[in-house]
Structure formats: structure tokens, C-alpha cells
């Protein structure tokens, strides 16, 4: 039902321009579009509230934040909250670079390790595979609250305290969520593709690189988006492992606007949070382009 809308106008576009049949098809498409908008827009109004709230708070003077009933429009927008929040107390430039370095490394690390493992679980036959896959799932099930202290002790014993290593090394060793996700996508590709290539003498890695990865491009985009956001917003890890302010990341810096007993510079906090949100939005739009490229390739499948 979905792709028909993309392909139909192209198929019929130039052919028979003035016939009533075309008219009615076009009318149907418009009605279809109207129904979709009618269903999707009310929800969108609710889902955009957090962003509007952030923008509204970011533009308020401090004494308008807690008034009741809450007001969406500040009396006079304080545009300098953005520059003041960014520069007044903490070195957010430094934190931005730190976060970027860690995040980019972790996205690449996750892509590499999770694609490999997912490929193994989805398409290579070997004894013990089901056991190991159950283990992948099992490691997602234990609440982190009870493993975080032993893990901190472990990394400390490795001498990694107050370094980025506890944040940047593990992503190269897989993340169960992404392994499971990519496995599902790999599994929905017909097996004959691999087998044909294998008979032609292609290695497993050649098959993965040249045949499978291009086919799961939307899934890879999803992993990039999720990994980027997850690492960009990661708060607990940096909070525990990083002690020096000059190594600290944005998520921790953001929460430092919040102090004891309601001493919170909410307006600065939200202004900085909006700036921090920008790269995430960029990645999302970039990821969307990979989605579209994925559509072009679907013809190979099935």
C-alpha cells in the first residue's frame, strides 16, 4: 500500500493526461493523502510539545519559569540565554568536542562489531549458534542497577578510571540490542543470494560487504541514529567514569545546571539542551537519506 503512491504517478504521469480515469486516480490520491494527514497531524501536535516546551523555557527570564498556570510564551524572549548558558559557567565547547569524539568512535565501533556478530547469527551455520544467540539476549535482561558497581570496580582495576576508555572501548565489542536488530534484518534477505555468491567463490566477508550490507542500509541507518543518540545523551557512564571537568561530556554538563534545593537555571539548561539537540537532528535527517536510498535498492530483493 505504501510504495504504490511513489511509483504510480511516475507510471501514469505522462501517459494519458486528460482522461477522466487519470482525474479520478489523482482525486483518490489526494483523498488518501488527506486521510493520512488527518490521522497523523493531531498526534504530531502532541509529540512536538516537548520541543515547544524546551524552546519556550529557553527563552524565558528566570522569574517566569515557575509561574502558574504555565505559560507558553515568554513576556519578552531572552535570546541571549543561548549564548549566556553556553559560555557563562562551563566550557561547553570543550564538552561538545569530547562528546563528539566519543560518540563518533562509538557509532563506528558499534556498526563494526554489531554487523559482524549479527551476520554470524543470521547467515552462517555453526554448532552452538543458538546457545550464543540466547546469551546475546540474556545480557539485555539484567537491570544495570546491580552490575554498575562491579563494572566500575572492573574498569578501575584495569586502570581506566578517569579516562574515556570505559566509554569508548566496549562499543567495539558489540551491543546486544543492535546485534539482535541487525540479525532480524539480515534474516529477512533470501538465502540464495549468499549461496550463489559462495559457489562463485566469494568469502563470507565479501558476501557481507558487497551483497548484504547494501541491502540492509535502512537498518544500518537505524543503528547509526540510535547509536549516535544513545551515546550523545549518555549520562550515567561519563558521570561515573570521568572525574576531570576537561574530559566531561555534554549530558553531564547539562545536568550541572541543576543544583540542590531547586537552584536550577532552567532557562540556561533548556537553551543549552536545544543546542545539544541540533547534531542529533542533523544525524536524523542524514539517516533519513539512507532510508530513501534503501528504497531504490528494494528491487533486488524478493
Amino acid at each position: 500500500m505504501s510504495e504504490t503512491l511513489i511509483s504510480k504517478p511516475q507510471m501514469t504521469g505522462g501517459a494519458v493526461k486528460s482522461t477522466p480515469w487519470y482525474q479520478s486516480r489523482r482525486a483518490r490520491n489526494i483523498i488518501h493523502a488527506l486521510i493520512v494527514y488527518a490521522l497523523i497531524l493531531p498526534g504530531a501536535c502532541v509529540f512536538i510539545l516537548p520541543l515547544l516546551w524546551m524552546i519556550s523555557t529557553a527563552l524565558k527570564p528566570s522569574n517566569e519559569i515557575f509561574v502558574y498556570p504555565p505559560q507558553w510564551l515568554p513576556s519578552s524572549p531572552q535570546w541571549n540565554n543561548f549564548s549566556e548558558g553556553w559560555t557563562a559557567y562551563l566550557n561547553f565547547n570543550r564538552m561538545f568536542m569530547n562528546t563528539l569524539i566519543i560518540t563518533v568512535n562509538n557509532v563506528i565501533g558499534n556498526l563494526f562489531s554489531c554487523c559482524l556478530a549479527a551476520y554470524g547469527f543470521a547467515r552462517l551455520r555453526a554448532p552452538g549458534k543458538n546457545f550464543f544467540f540466547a546469551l546475546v539476549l540474556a545480557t539485555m535482561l539484567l537491570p544495570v542497577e546491580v552490575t554498575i558497581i562491579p563494572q566500575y570496580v572492573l574498569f578501575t582495576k584495569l586502570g581506566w578510571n578517569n579516562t574515556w576508555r570505559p566509554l569508548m572501548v566496549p562499543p567495539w565489542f558489540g551491543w546486544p540490542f543492535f546485534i539482535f536488530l541487525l540479525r532480524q534484518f539480515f534474516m529477512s534477505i533470501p538465502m540464495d543470494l549468499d549461496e550463489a555468491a559462495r559457489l562463485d567463490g566469494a568469502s563470507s566477508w565479501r558476501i557481507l560487504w558487497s551483497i548484504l550490507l547494501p541491502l540492509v542500509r535502512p537498518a544500518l541507518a537505524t543503528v547509526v541514529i540510535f547509536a549516535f543518540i544513545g551515546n550523545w545523551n549518555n549520562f550515567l557512564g561519563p558521570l561515573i567514569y570521568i572525574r576531570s571537568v576537561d574530559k566531561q561530556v555534554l549530558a553531564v554538563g547539562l545536568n550541572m545546571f541543576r543544583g540542590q534545593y531547586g537552584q536550577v537555571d532552567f532557562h540556561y539548561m533548556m537553551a543549552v539542551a536545544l543546542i545539544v539537540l541540533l547534531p542529533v537532528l542533523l544525524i536524523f535527517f542524514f539517516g533519513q537519506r539512507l532510508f530513501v536510498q534503501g528504497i531504490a535498492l528494494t528491487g533486488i530483493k524478493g
Partner: protein
Amino acid sequence: MVLTISALIRRRPLTLHQREQVDFYIAILPWLLGLILFTGGPVLASLIFSVTNWTGMNLAEVKWVGLENFRTLLFDDGLFWIATVNTFYYSFGAVTLGTMGALFVAILLNQNLPGTTLLRVIYYLPSITSGVAISILWIWLFNPQVGLVNYLLSVVGIKGPLWLGSQDWVKPALILKSTWGIGANMIIILAGLQGVPVSLYEAAKIDGANWWHEFRHVTLPMLSPVLFFVVVISVINSLQILTDVLVMTQGGPGTASFVYVYYIYQAAFQYLKMGYASALAWILFAIILALTLLQLWGSKRWVYYEGGEH
């Protein structure tokens, strides 16, 4: 000449098969190393702590208590059962609404209409901004007097409940809040929808299928591996709900939103009972593992893998 070729063909499947096995272990090696180096130790440690009275601070004073923690939990701790029931209630609602909501939105946003990309961003926004402290927004939305939720209900003539202030409505409120997080599932399903071959729809069209038939016989089967993932992950995540409870309700009113991982968090970091918290965590582990294995087993009935099961 003919002989060598036939010999090659005969020998090739065998070597290929072995090669494949070796490749499998190479492929999962990074993950396996990570499990051994980084994850395995802490997990085992928590298992050991579950049979001790560890407070979570002084490792020198850990005392073995055997299965005492588990016995207390199952037979002497009313909070454990309250937390378990609350968590299942929440999880059922959150998974059902979350999965169906995400599927619905993803299908609508898979039409290549103008503004789709922007709408996708909007639906994903609450998931991205969750790291920012906007709990007051959610609390305010559920406010009985001036909140948006009750306002919308009043428009259709319903007098809304007290939501977070009511023992009966706090769990539905948390479930409703969780649907703001469908963005992540929506992205996954959208990615899955890109993999459904256009040719299948065209074939269905030629067969005179209506939209429901298309959805039922093309979209759903082709999407089932991804939907399976979404359901499994949603179950795991919803059973481990913590943040919303921590910032919005602190388990209240009374114990109405006292959920499982909130209990673990309180026991581990507030009550100085890391041993007890570990026992709690491992019982939850067993519960989720059973559910996940059940889903894996059940998936054979409804999940269709183009690549085949092997």
C-alpha cells in the same frame, strides 16, 4: 579435466561448510570477547552478591547469607509482589499500545507525502529529548485541573481522572506517557518497511487485493522479523521501567506505581541492600528470560524469515 572439476565440486561443499563455521566464530568474536572481558564479570558478581548481605559499598564486609534473600523476597516481602503485579500491568499496557501505535504511525509515515520527513522527526522527538529534564511537562500534562489530557477528554464530554494523584489511574497514566516514546519503534518499523519489495504490492494489486489484504498478506509477513524484534525489546524495556517512575511518581500514590526496577534501585542505592537488590534483579532476570524464550519459541508460528530458519 572432467574428473578434477567434479572432484572440486564434490569437495567444495564440505570445505565451504567448515569455512562457514570458522567464519561464524570470527564474526561473533568481538562480541564474545566483550562478554568475557566487560560484561561477564559484573554479571557473575551480581549473582554472587545475591546470596550475600552486601551493602553495595564496603567489599571487605560481604557476608554469605545463602538463599535467605530469595526466601525473604518470595515469602516475607509484600512489596516484592506489589512491584511484580504493578510491573506486569504496566508492561502489558505499554507493549500493546506502544507496538500498535508505532506500527500505525510508521505505516502512515511511510507514504511519500510532503512533510513526511519532518513528521518523522516530530514523532521521534520525545525519544530524543528524554535525556533532558522535562518531567514537569509530563506531570503538567496529566494535571487534573489544567492538564492537556483532561482538557482533551473534556472536549469529548468526559471528566478526566486524577491520573498521577490516583491509585487507580497512575498506571494508565504511565502507560499513556510511554506511548510518547514510540518514536524509536517507529524508526525500526520504518526501516523494516523499506525492505518490503514493491513487486509484492504490485502483484497483490494485480490480484485485486484491497488495502487490508495487502497489509495482512504482504506487509505483516514481510515485516514480521522486525515486529518480533520490536515486541521482544518492548517487553524487556517495559519490564525494566524506572526513569518515568523516578521522576514522576516515586512509586506512589501509596504503592500504586511501585514497580520492580524502582524497588531494585531503592534497595541498591537508598536502603544499602545491594545483596537483596541483586536477588531481586536475578528473579526479574529469570522472569524476562522465560518470557523471551517463550516469544522465541512462539515466533516460529508467526515470524516469516525470507532467509529461512536454520
